[in-house]
């Protein structure tokens, strides 16, 4: 995804309502002749027959066949492992995984596919919690934001986000939250935020000249659960890029994606820890709808 917007999309589906509601967002992404879509379904051969699942796979998001740039892959085995394995084998630019349908109850012991892909995968993850209303999924993004989180490869992440903003031709915002100041130890106001407060901004000025869109920087300090949604709302961001540090959070019932995503109705693209290790891998062959399904 470096120096270009994502073009190779993977949509692992369980045929759930959440997957169905993701289709309008996918159709917006697919409105570009460079886009290629792979729809992946993993089934349990002990519970279902392959022919039956094949029919279902071809019937789900059937309109994708009209795109002419779509292939469908059927894999048998445990869902989470198979999807993770497939994502490691094939360097997709973006993996579409919406939030599961809310049950209304805490899911104790639930293992999140999104968290697994963010912790073990190499491809950025598209996700959204805006399932009930879904308005943000039915329109093209109007404002792109990148939430910077001091990761090693933040420049790659920023570049990818900027190229995506350029692709949609929309404003691009860089959001940075300074750590809360420790005012108890008598430090001076000049250096209460970070040791070198201007460091990232100076680097950003250098980088800004190479980006395809102007960067609008927005900063704040304080609690990220309060300040980040505020900053994102201020810039009306509806396509938000986040680093792996911010994407995952440890909660009472296990590790989950950051709850901030629930408070912002929009699309999120989260970079996994292994992002940037995609080079030197061969991309999968694309086939059209009349080709037979492949089995791994």
């Amino acid at each position, binding site marked *: 995804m470096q120096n270009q917007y994502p073009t190779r999309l993977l949509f692992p589906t369980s045929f759930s309502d959440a997957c169905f*509601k993701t289709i*309008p967002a996918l*159709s917006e992404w697919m409105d570009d002749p460079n886009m290629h879509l792979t729809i992946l379904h993993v089934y349990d051969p002990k519970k279902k027959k392959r022919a039956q699942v094949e029919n279902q796979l071809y*019937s789900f998001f059937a309109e994708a066949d009209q795109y002419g740039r779509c292939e469908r892959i059927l894999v048998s085995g445990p869902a989470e492992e198979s999807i993770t394995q497939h994502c490691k084998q094939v360097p997709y630019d973006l993996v579409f995984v919406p939030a599961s349908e*809310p049950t*209304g109850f805490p899911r104790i012991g639930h293992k999140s596919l999104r968290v697994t892909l963010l912790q073990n995968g190499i491809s950025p993850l598209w996700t959204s919690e805006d399932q009930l209303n879904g308005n943000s999924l039915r329109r093209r993004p109007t404002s792109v934001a990148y939430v910077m989180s001091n990761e090693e490869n933040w420049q790659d992440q920023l570049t990818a986000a900027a190229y995506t903003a350029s692709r949609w031709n929309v404003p691009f915002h860089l959001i940075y939250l300074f750590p809360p100041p420790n005012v108890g130890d008598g430090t001076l106001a000049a250096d209460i935020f970070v040791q070198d407060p201007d460091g990232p901004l100076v680097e950003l000025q250098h980088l800004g000249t190479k980006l395809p869109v102007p960067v609008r920087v927005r900063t704040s300090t304080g609690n990220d659960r309060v300040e980040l949604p505020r900053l994102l709302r201020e810039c009306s961001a509806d396509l938000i890029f986040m680093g792996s540090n911010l994407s995952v959070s440890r909660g009472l019932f296990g590790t989950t994606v950051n709850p901030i995503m629930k408070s912002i109705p929009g699309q999120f693209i989260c970079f996994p820890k292994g992002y940037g290790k995609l080079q030197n891998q061969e991309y999968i062959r694309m086939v059209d709808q009349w080709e037979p399904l492949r089995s791994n």
Partner: protein
Amino acid sequence: MIVSDHLPLKRIWPAVSRKLFYLLLFDLSISLLYTFGGMKFLAISAFPLAPLVGALSIFLAFRTQSAYGRWWEARILWGGLVNYSRTITRQALTLIDGTAEGLGSPADPRHQIVRLQIAFVRAFRCHLRRQNPFPELESILDEDCIRRLRQHSNVPTGILLESGNVVRKAQEDGRLDSYRWVAIDNSITELTNIFGSCERIKNTPLPRQYDYLPRIFVSAICILLPFSLVEGLELLTPVASTLISFILLALDTVGREIESPFENTVHDTPMTSLSRSIEINLRQQLGDRRSLREVHPVEGFIY
């Protein structure tokens, strides 16, 4: 659209589970306070539960009937779209003069009209689902036409205009007399009417009072239920109360969900399946040998 014999409750469950959970806690606390806490005043045996639930049932049935009316009208309109798509294709192929060899050319007006009709059905579905139609149209329409259509905020109407222009051009070229032109134009007008009717259903919700009042009444009765039941059932109150609440909440939810047949839910009119059937028919009428796959139900739902 649900085609499975049994209603999969887990699809309704997410909507009502949170409410039911809180109601269960509430019922349980009323039951415990009455049985072990000695708070006998919690029992309101004179509470007219039966007439209230009866009145609410009438209200819910009326609302569900109104919602079903919208859902069924949507299905009828899509049935009409199937019929008129076949009609306009037949008219294009039989009323416009031309040779069998010429039909294979993409520039032939007969070929153009059938392709535009396939594009119209695709764009119609996308418009109702508020989905971008262009990735689907690029494979069937030429670049110039796509460029013109991108100027339209209402793409299906733009496609009908393109169809009208193709028919007019055929008439100017002498391949169609005025009578046949009027016949084809009437079919295009019918398509406009069907499209407009679907937009009306999409853009005009059921009066909000039909949605708001049943929701309030259902919540009120669910809260009052344990007070009415606790004297007779004591510790079994949460079981009975939650069960009755579930029935009322499920009825309320189902009524609300079917009132919008174009909202990307499992209760939708199966537009993907219908548009695929239309496309298969039209391609076959055009003599296209490539076979498209039918759309089958997925886990008991057809989209």
